[in-house]
């Protein structure tokens, strides 16, 4: 720890670096941990100006969660490659349902809509926009496009079923249902997050939306879009 301790074999010489001075602080430190109970309420009562500082755990947490999700899909992808290598005889290519491309467009559009919403929310929070309605509209749009995506994926499943391709039919259909299924479950989680954002943003019952919640939700949502594009590429390439 201290250079002086190393190298000298005898008597301890402890010349410690002078401690950095901080004045004793009480709990009004804005960036304290708060142990998860960060019910930050502006002193003037105007919730619209709430912004939370850097290092907010929600934002960190979402990156960590995304790392785990990425790892999960990496594992599934490697499973796909290994499985393809293990037996080529039953690797029957399937034609991807066309609707997947439409769904992709919907998901990308929803990401754009969410970015628009984020700008509107920020404007409202900063007091630049008087009303929530514009932001709410974009949030609703995001939600709707997300639901369109989920419904579209379901349509894709139905189309595959109609071809007689079920989950255990062959490895390609297994992987198709697996990837789309696991992804849709994550997308539904994102829709849950969006709902939460909308409810919090509505300001009812004294609820308030923190910036980090919105940020985290949108990072997650964009990640789902990017993940889907990767998956689509993988499915198109391999299945």
């Amino acid at each position: 720890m201290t250079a002086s301790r190393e190298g000298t074999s005898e008597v301890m010489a402890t010349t410690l670096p002078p401690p950095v001075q901080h004045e004793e602080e009480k709990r009004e430190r804005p960036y304290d941990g708060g142990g998860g109970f960060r019910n930050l309420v502006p002193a003037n009562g105007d919730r619209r100006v709430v912004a939370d500082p850097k290092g907010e755990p929600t934002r960190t947490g979402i990156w960590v969660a995304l790392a785990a999700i990425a790892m999960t899909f990496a594992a599934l992808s490697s499973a796909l490659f290994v499985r393809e290598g293990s037996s080529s005889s039953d690797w029957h290519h399937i034609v991807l349902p066309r609707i997947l491309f439409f769904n992709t467009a919907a998901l990308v559009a929803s990401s754009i809509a969410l970015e628009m919403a984020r700008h509107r929310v920020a404007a409202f929070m900063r007091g630049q926009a008087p009303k929530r309605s514009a932001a709410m509209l974009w949030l609703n749009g995001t939600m709707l496009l997300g639901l369109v995506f989920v419904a579209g994926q379901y349509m894709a499943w139905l189309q595959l079923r109609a071809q007689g391709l079920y989950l255990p039919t062959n490895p390609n259909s297994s992987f198709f249902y697996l990837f789309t299924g696991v992804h849709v479950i994550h997308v539904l989680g994102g829709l849950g997050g969006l709902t939460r954002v909308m409810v919090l943003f509505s300001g009812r019952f004294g609820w308030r939306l923190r910036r980090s919640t919105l940020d985290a939700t949108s990072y997650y949502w964009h990640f789902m879009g990017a993940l889907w594009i990767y998956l689509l590429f993988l499915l198109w390439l391999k299945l």
Partner: protein
Amino acid sequence: MSSKIFAVLVIVIALASAVPIIHHSFLGATVAPPQDISTHGYEIDKQMDETMLEAGLSFLAAQLVLGFFVWQFGGRKDGVLKNFPGGAKYLVLAAVLLVGAEVIALGAMGTKAWAKVYFDKPSADAMPVQVQAGQFAFYFHYPGPDGKFGTIHPEKIDEGSGNYFGLADDDPAAKDDIQSGEFVIPVNREIHLMMHGKDVGHSFYVRELRIQQDFVPGIDLSMHFTATKIGRYEIVCTQLCGLGHYNMKAYLNVMSQEDFDKWLKSQAG
């Protein structure tokens, strides 16, 4: 007091641990690997001895130093704090250099032994034998005079009547095949063992031959070795395969060439 007990205990345990290794006999049981009967095994044994020496010395040194330091400094009150001469830097350096050298040396040497088992190709005149592992027995399949193995039909396997490999009656290659529950091989002849898994994972382990290889269902692997000593040895399964795992074994019977020919004849008859 406790520090002295601990120090003595660590040293005693360390020394006692080394005794069975040096002595090879523990409570009347021999704990050393049995004598090697293969042409490649000496490489593995050499590697094992080297590692035992290095690991054993590191083990003893570390435990003795631990015991000694605890004896010396344990329970000391208000003594003058001292630091290990040289501090962390030299310890780290020592660890990196010594262990690094050890790693490289053992790694390189081990590669040689590994290569002998896995990279060398079986010679052209190696005797082919097929082995099938299933719950919970090994069966051996000799191609017979035509040198061709009958095709395995998993659905035709019937252990109750001795058709261990599910050979078909109408398969010409299977007509002269020999199916046996015992692995009989001639001494000093290279064996090319083709491994087939019938159901779940199994493994083929002969201590004396210094070979061990998993059966992977769906993948037919192969192994080759030469036994150099006549005798009867146990083949056991080392991959957990179900309730009869403990009893999944067969015998390896290494015979002289004449005895082996006789055995082949008796089986064909």
